[in-house]
């Protein structure tokens, strides 16, 4: 039984069958992870900067939410940042090996799946 249930759940055509709300209840919160986005770190010419530590903070509470390091394509994948619902996040970027670039703090006020942040040369 369980495998049929799982199979049906995976089929997009049957998704409607699995979403419901009781009369006195709310809709289900269908957000997958809380939110996922990609941080793309580039220099002024748009070139990827690898190996930058990306720390995401809830700007209101100061809570640290996630830290990752950009890969060779300048990308960091932020998987879980629930306070993104308040779209008031602070990104702190610290180059780990590119000593030429300055650390940067930036505050994001809008939700977006991909955020590009430019680091400046010293």
């Amino acid at each position, binding site marked *: 039984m369980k495998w049929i249930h799982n199979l049906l759940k995976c089929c997009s055509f049957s998704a409607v069958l699995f979403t*419901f709300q*009781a*009369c006195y209840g709310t*809709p289900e919160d269908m957000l997958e992870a*809380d939110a996922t986005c990609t941080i793309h770190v580039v220099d002024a010419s748009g070139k990827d900067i690898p190996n930058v530590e990306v720390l995401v903070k809830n700007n209101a509470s100061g809570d640290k939410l996630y830290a990752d390091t950009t890969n060779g394509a300048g990308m960091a994948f932020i998987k879980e940042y*629930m306070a993104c*619902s308040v779209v008031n996040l602070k990104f702190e970027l610290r180059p780990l090996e590119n000593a030429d670039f300055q650390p940067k703090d930036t505050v994001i006020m809008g939700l977006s799946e991909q955020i590009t942040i430019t680091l400046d040369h010293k």
Partner: protein
Amino acid sequence: MIGNLLFRAFRKVETNVHELNYLFWECTTRCNLHCRHCGSDCKEASGERDMPIADFIGALKTIPRKAIPKNFTVVLTGGEPLMRRDIAEVGRQIREYGCHWGMVTNGQLYTAERQDELLRAGMGALTISLDGLEASHDWMRGRTGSYNRAVEAIRLAAAQPRLYFDVVTCVNQRNINELDGIYNLLCEIGVPQWRIFTIIPIGRAKDDPKLHLADSQFVDLMEFIKQHRQHSGRTKVTFSCEGYLGRYERVVRDAPYFCHAGVNIASVLIDGRICACPNIDRDRFSQGNIYTDNLYQVWNERFEPFRNRNWARTGICKNCKAFNLCLGNGMHNWHGACDEVINCHYRKIENSGNQ
């Protein structure tokens, strides 16, 4: 025909698997309004104390993390949940345990600051009640000015893209002629979904004729929803899960009728009792109590009357040709001795003769 057979097969699988993914918590019975239709007879200063957070979270944590599906949603209900000052703390603890959470509110205490606080605590779903245009809403809710506050709250929530948000309206004699006006208002505000339901004849609502629709009005309501689902306004209109609708099935809502109570839905009530939707007869159908039982064990081992509804083959349901699709209507339509269903939507539609 084939669609119905497939749906019944699906419902059987769902019932056998009975994955818990929707949990109500009746976190308070205090309320700042005095609604005519409220089944729970809530008051500003309720006789029942609010359940401490730790008691509820302790019960939630009996559900192993691995048994929590992706969309598992805890729904805070009341009373009016915002009468509690610690809702954000509750929400944070629910999120920390890997569950989503949402809240049903009358909107009276829902300010921009409160919304911010709740979103920061991971709130992902919200429902606000609006029971008519100004005079009708205030009449229904028992307080002048409650409409304006509810509309302000609706504006705030509709502007917040993170929320799975909808507005619910309980349709009655007073507001049935205002449906177009409410629809236009919600479209103007940008509310994504408007969910309509009718009143269950229990509690205060039982003896108030202004609250109940005649059969022909009920069909008018179905037609209203049908028409408004056909044009692409900003607000999607849908009928609630409350009952089997015969020829309006899959016309006034997306999915076929399926009462998920006890199949996917459980609740922790104010006194710790474990049941399903809070509008179900709790004296009759509660399955245990978090103060004496393990919530998850109760979910797995009890709930038989919810998962096998053959007991509902009684009274008018006994020889009903629609029983296999309806199963005796939503569980909330059975109260007391349960020898007769208190509301049959299908019959209302068939009786009205309105094609």
